[in-house]
């Protein structure tokens, strides 16, 4: 990042610059089929997933290699989560949740590499996934239960006078789901990376004014290290939260009766 700043002839840069979508070849406008840095990093994400699982399951040894242990650990972790949260009949939809989790966790981790691009920091990317989950869950609910799916909004354990008001709240919260589902992931990734870059813009201060810089530069580098460690944790937790909320929505679709 310091090289980038020096190349620009000054030491400051905007913390949101890292989220700009630009074409990979040339500087033409970004169209529907332009190959951009988003395309590159999504492709790398998919390649990493394929690499982990194809290499990991190639030998299928009784005593697993390191790659195989990671693949088995990930598989078992998500399988158990789906089984615990959405029940036995939710296991049928395990491949979908596993795919979502792997894509998110790998693009979050790849986004932590310096000079890389975090595809999940764009609401356009996460909104597609969240809308996919929302449509899938809604259609599944209506296919499985027909009009009975609407009993999700009619809470029969509440007093009768309260039920219409609760139904209204439930309907609103149902339609806010895709919004919060997508913005939670994108917002977390964007905010974390922006904070790292804000501290990174304080780091080269020692080159400008030695007096203040001698104090601020080590502090900001320490802060970058600490926030980076936090971001590794957040990357995993947000992927986990996205997957677990998908399971919760799936459970609502499979068992709408309260």
């Amino acid at each position, binding site marked *: 990042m310091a090289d980038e700043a020096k190349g620009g002839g000054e030491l400051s840069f905007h913390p949101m610059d890292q989220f700009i979508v630009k074409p990979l070849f040339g500087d033409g406008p970004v169209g529907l089929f332009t190959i951009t840095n988003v395309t590159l990093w999504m492709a790398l994400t998919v390649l990493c997933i394929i690499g982990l699982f194809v290499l990991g399951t190639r030998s299928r040894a009784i005593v697993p290699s390191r790659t195989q242990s990671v693949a088995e650990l990930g598989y078992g972790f998500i399988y158990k989560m789906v089984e*615990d949260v959405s029940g036995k009949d939710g296991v049928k939809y395990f491949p979908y949740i596993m795919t979502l989790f792997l894509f998110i966790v790998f693009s979050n981790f790849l986004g932590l590499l310096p000079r890389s691009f975090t595809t999940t920091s764009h609401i356009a990317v996460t909104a597609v996934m969240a809308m996919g989950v929302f449509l899938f869950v809604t259609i599944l609910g209506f296919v499985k239960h027909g009009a009975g799916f609407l009993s999700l909004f009619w809470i029969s354990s509440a007093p009768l006078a309260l039920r219409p008001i609760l139904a209204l709240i439930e309907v609103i919260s149902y339609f806010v789901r895709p919004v919060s589902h997508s*913005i939670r992931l994108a917002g977390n990734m964007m905010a974390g990376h922006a904070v790292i870059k804000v501290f990174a813009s304080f780091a080269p201060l020692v080159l400008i004014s030695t007096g203040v810089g001698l104090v601020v530069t080590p502090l900001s580098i320490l802060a970058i290290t600490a926030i980076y460690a936090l971001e590794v944790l957040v990357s995993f937790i947000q992927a*986990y*939260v996205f997957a677990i909320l998908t399971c*919760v929505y799936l459970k609502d679709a499979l068992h709408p009766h309260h």
Partner: protein
Amino acid sequence: MEGDIVEMGKYIGAGLACTGMGGAAVGVGHVVGNYLSGALRNPSAAAGQTATMFIGIAFSEALGIFSFLVALLLMFAV
């Protein structure tokens, strides 16, 4: 002059929107704190409730993220 006031309003609004993050902090702290106090009372039941804790964190955190989003919209979109 008018542009300056609009610009000032944007920055003040974005700053005010950040107070929402405090609410999310209180919420997440409350969820985790209660989980921990329950887990220490009955450690054998704690492992089964970790997923529930994360769901609770996610719901209360979402509102903090919304305030961040409002700040971003004010800064870059309005």
